[in-house]
């Protein structure tokens, strides 16, 4: 690096810091004017950090940020006018008005989003690093987070994963000494964040966060290490925000005016200015010119933002799902075929295994993560033999850190790969529900459709074989409440294969829930490849008198009593929606229009559930077709017990289904 280049870099750094400072001060003014509609967390006092790190990044190097993210966005190259427009809620904002201060997206320049939740950015940066490793792009991912996040589980899980897989990630902890108003000195047993690197076997640094040039140097070395394949670095930058946690909040309940004033004197911009003049990189006049240019840039940006149009209310539900989904890779085939020379009988597990291995062969961006899915081939043989073909990066065994690797999957999908998370049991994923609900499901929406989220989350659900309560949950109704998710619950091998193949080509996040009691069930599956569309229910048995809607194992349980009922003159039609989100209400309505009676058999408890949703839909749209009240048959409102007599009592049995159908016929 020549002196000349060095001076230019320093001046650019100075200018970027000044842009952040003046933009934040203008935003503070605008907050007082009421132009900023929601929260406004400024970066004032911390300007040295993000520009010094981002100076080493290209637009393809992804940055994942936190709730105090204005500075990160501006450092990554976002224009102040887009930032201001977003805070003003305008169509021209970084997130097109869907995000605000805490959800800033500009994936075009590698700004992968700020987050209102503390911690996930660490895991997402691991995902960015994993994409880089899988696709060998040489990209480096950066997580900016505060001292608060360093005491969050995501920090532990993220740093450990980055360490064991040598991910190209920089973890930048901006320790401004308060998690909102909780002092770091109180909240942390270890007064250093930087020295925790050694706990994970990675380099860790503890820097003066107001010293731009030092941060610039250390970050540069860390980026070079990462690009060279030598893994992650943790850098703690000790700093101080000299404005309140959020604009409008009182600031002196937890710290003193004297402390704040003292830190103001340690202003990182003034410090860099002095350094630049002292080392001859710039003159006062040159720096004044930069200040003036930035001032007018910020003023122009504010005028632009103020003059920008509001988004249209008609677009409020756009971008929940991908608007331009990728086409299927195999022909669509929604109807279960009759056995023929072009079909075979295979098990549910064989069917999903075929789907996964066929798609992995076609798409190098697919990788699988989970506990024991590598050499072991999966607890349920979901990945048997694939490790030998694709190796440890595409078949990645994980530590037991569900939140960690689900958060990683989020970041990986955001950066262009297609993670398949194999949970084993859906109960295990409860630790990562925040990552699924708050991050994975909402990313496409928050980014106004500029991110795709091809994440497949698969695992076993269902009661049986004394698995007891931590290996028996279903949870699909809970996921069914979350905009942005696809929730798939197949009941037979044909559906399982076609829907898994669809899921592996879908650009939306998919929860693929496999009932454990069905894994060995055999069924007819075509030899040719095919996909099944989401939101297309399957009429698995036609009948005249009563419609039964069921999912997964309850489909098979219902089918097992249909012949007995038929002999007694009760003709049952069984409809399997196959996907909870999207839900094919139309096919259910059509069936009820024929039969006039509806029973929903649903394994989990009834409250606020899947059966209630269907009942409400049919009551609203099929009221005049109903010849009897709608019935639900659900599992008991209890966790799943171990002992067989107890276990059998909480799940709808074939006898209970038959009895309920007979009762419904009497209505």
């Amino acid at each position: 690096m020549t002196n000349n280049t060095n001076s230019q870099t320093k001046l650019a750094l100075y200018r970027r810091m000044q842009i952040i400072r003046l933009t934040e001060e203008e935003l503070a003014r605008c907050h007082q004017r009421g132009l900023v509609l929601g929260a406004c967390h400024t970066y004032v006092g911390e300007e040295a950090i993000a520009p010094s790190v981002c100076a080493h990044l290209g637009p393809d190097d992804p940055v994942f940020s936190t709730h105090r993210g204005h500075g990160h966005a501006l450092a990554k190259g976002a224009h102040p006018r887009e930032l201001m427009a977003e805070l003003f809620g305008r169509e021209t904002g970084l997130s097109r008005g869907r995000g605000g201060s805490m959800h800033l997206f500009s994936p075009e320049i590698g700004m992968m989003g700020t987050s209102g939740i503390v911690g996930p950015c660490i895991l997402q940066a691991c995902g960015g690093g994993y994409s880089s490793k899988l696709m060998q792009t040489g990209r480096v991912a950066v997580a900016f987070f505060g001292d608060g996040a360093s005491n969050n589980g995501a920090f532990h899980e993220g740093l450990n994963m980055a360490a064991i897989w040598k991910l190209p990630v920089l973890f930048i902890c901006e320790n401004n000494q308060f998690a909102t108003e909780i002092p770091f000195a109180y909240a942390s047993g270890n007064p250093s964040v930087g020295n925790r690197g050694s706990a994970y076997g990675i380099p860790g640094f503890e820097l003066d966060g107001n010293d731009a040039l030092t941060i610039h140097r250390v970050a540069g070395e860390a980026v070079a290490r990462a690009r060279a394949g030598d893994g992650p670095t943790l850098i703690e930058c000790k700093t101080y925000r000299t404005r309140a946690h959020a604009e409008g909040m009182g600031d002196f309940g937890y710290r003193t005016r004297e402390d704040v004033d003292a830190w103001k004197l340690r202003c990182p911009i003034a410090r860099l200015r002095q350094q630049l003049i002292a080392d001859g990189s710039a003159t006062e006049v040159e720096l004044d010119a930069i200040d003036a240019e930035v001032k007018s840039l910020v003023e122009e940006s504010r005028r632009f933002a103020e003059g920008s149009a509001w988004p249209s209310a008609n677009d409020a539900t756009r971008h929940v799902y991908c608007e331009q989904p990728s086409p299927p890779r195999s022909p669509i085939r929604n109807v279960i075929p009759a056995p023929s020379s072009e079909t075979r009988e295979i098990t549910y597990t064989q069917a999903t295994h075929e789907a996964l291995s066929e798609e992995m062969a076609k798409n190098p961006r697919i990788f699988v993560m989970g506990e024991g899915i590598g050499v072991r081939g999966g607890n349920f043989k979901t990945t048997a033999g694939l490790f030998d073909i694709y190796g440890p990066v595409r078949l990645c065994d994980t530590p037991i850190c569900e939140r960690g690797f689900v958060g990683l999957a989020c970041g990986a999908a955001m950066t262009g790969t297609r993670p398949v998370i194999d949970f084993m049991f859906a109960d295990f994923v409860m630790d990562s529900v925040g990552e699924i609900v708050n991050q994975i499901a909402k990313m496409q929406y928050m980014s106004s459709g500029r991110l795709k989220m091809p994440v497949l989350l698969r695992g076993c659900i269902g009661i049986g074989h004394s698995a007891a309560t931590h290996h028996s949950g279903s949870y699909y109704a809970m996921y069914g409440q979350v905009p942005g998710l696809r929730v798939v619950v197949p009941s037979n091998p044909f559906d399982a294969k076609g829907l898994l193949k669809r899921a592996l080509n879908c650009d939306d996040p998919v929860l693929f829930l496999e009932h454990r009691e069905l894994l060995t069930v055999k069924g007819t599956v075509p030899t040719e490849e095919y996909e099944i569309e989401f939101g297309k229910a399957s009429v698995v048995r036609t009948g005249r008198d009563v419609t039964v809607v069921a999912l997964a194992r309850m489909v098979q349980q219902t089918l097992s009593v249909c012949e007995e009922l038929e002999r007694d003159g009760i003709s049952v039609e069984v409809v399997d929606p196959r996907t909870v989100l999207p839900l094919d209400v139309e096919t259910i309505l059509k069936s009820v229009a024929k039969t006039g009676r509806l029973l929903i058999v649903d394994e989990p408890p009834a409250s606020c559930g899947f059966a209630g949703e269907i009942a409400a839909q049919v009551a609203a749209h099929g009221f005049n077709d109903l010849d009897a009240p709608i019935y639900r048959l659900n599992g008991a409102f209890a966790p799943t017990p171990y002992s067989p007599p107890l276990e059998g009592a909480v799940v709808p049995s074939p006898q209970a289904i038959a009895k309920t159908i007979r009762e419904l016929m009497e209505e």
Partner: protein
Amino acid sequence: MAVEIRVPRLGWSMEEGTFLGWLKQEGEAVKSGDVLYELEGEKATQEIESLDVGVLRIPANAPVPGSVVAVGALLGYLVSDGEAIPDTSPTRERGEADTNPTRERGRALHETTNPESRASNPESVTLNPERGGAPALADASGYMDRVIASPRARRVATELGVDWTRLKGSGRNGRVRERDVRAATATDGTRSTFSPRRRVIADRMLASQRQTASVTLTTRADATQLVRLREQFKASKTPTIVPSYADIIAKLAVTVLRQYPHMASRWDGDRLIEPTMTDDLAIGIAVDTDGGLLVPVIPQVSRLSVRQVAERSRELIEKARAGKLSTAEMQGGVFTITNLGAYGIDAFTPIINVPETAILGLGAIRREPVVIERDQIVIRDLITLSLTFDHRVTDGAPAARFLQTIRAAIEDAAVWLLN
């Protein structure tokens, strides 16, 4: 002060009618005696007159033309100039009982079919709110003491033109289901038109069969004189109406009923009322119309000439066939004559027109050989008479004597008419 316009009871059994439409406009001034609206009651359509004065105000949620309205239902208001409509729901029944034995019974039944234990019993249905919440609903809306029908049954009933409110439901708690509606239509599945009038006829026929101890006596009478009498009317050079056999026999029946007043008794609740000698006896004539059987009543038959009876009956029959009979024109009869002779029927078992005591059925008049004195065979016009009487009121022998007297009156019609 606003005057409420409510659905009147147009007959002894009327519970509801069909509101056909207003004959005055919203906002129009109404005088006492003006016709306000048309209402189809039990058996006929009636123009309802206003008893009051005011400006007609029709609330937005008032019954629309064609809707079935309960007796007492509010249709609108007569208000003074500039007065606003009172804030009352127009369709709400007044004085609806809050306690009702039927409802209590229904509620108890409901509870037994819906035990609390279901919620915690995995073998049982986790019930939907509609079913679980029904008892509370019953209290609020009188749910249990009216006919309930599934939404589908209602839809199918509308499609098939069936009145589901009169059906007996086969579902739980008597809920009318689709199958009940379909069963109520013709077995071949063709469209049925079970009109309100048909429903009234059905109810009254059934009521008669259930309430009376009916016995039918038949006999044959020589109607030669009757036939001749009619031919004389036909051949008359004086322009006149030709009385029907029923007209003539109505006139004869009144004379006979004077001798057997208990045959002209009417039930009034628990009391049986026998006409006195000074009472005018009104005779009902059964009329077949497109909409079903109607029985207009000819009042004061004893004071009318045969010609006048004929004129009056023709007028009433025309009104009946046009659907224009008023309820009053069908009330007050003490005895009914029904004639199936035109269809070649001889003997039949007429159903008593309650609250009357007896009904006389006329069969076909046929020319037949008759053996008279000295084994002579002559040709005569013979009619079969079918008298149904209520055995609660009188016994077989007196009824037989009454019928015998009727026969005598027919056989000697000219003398009986002139007396």
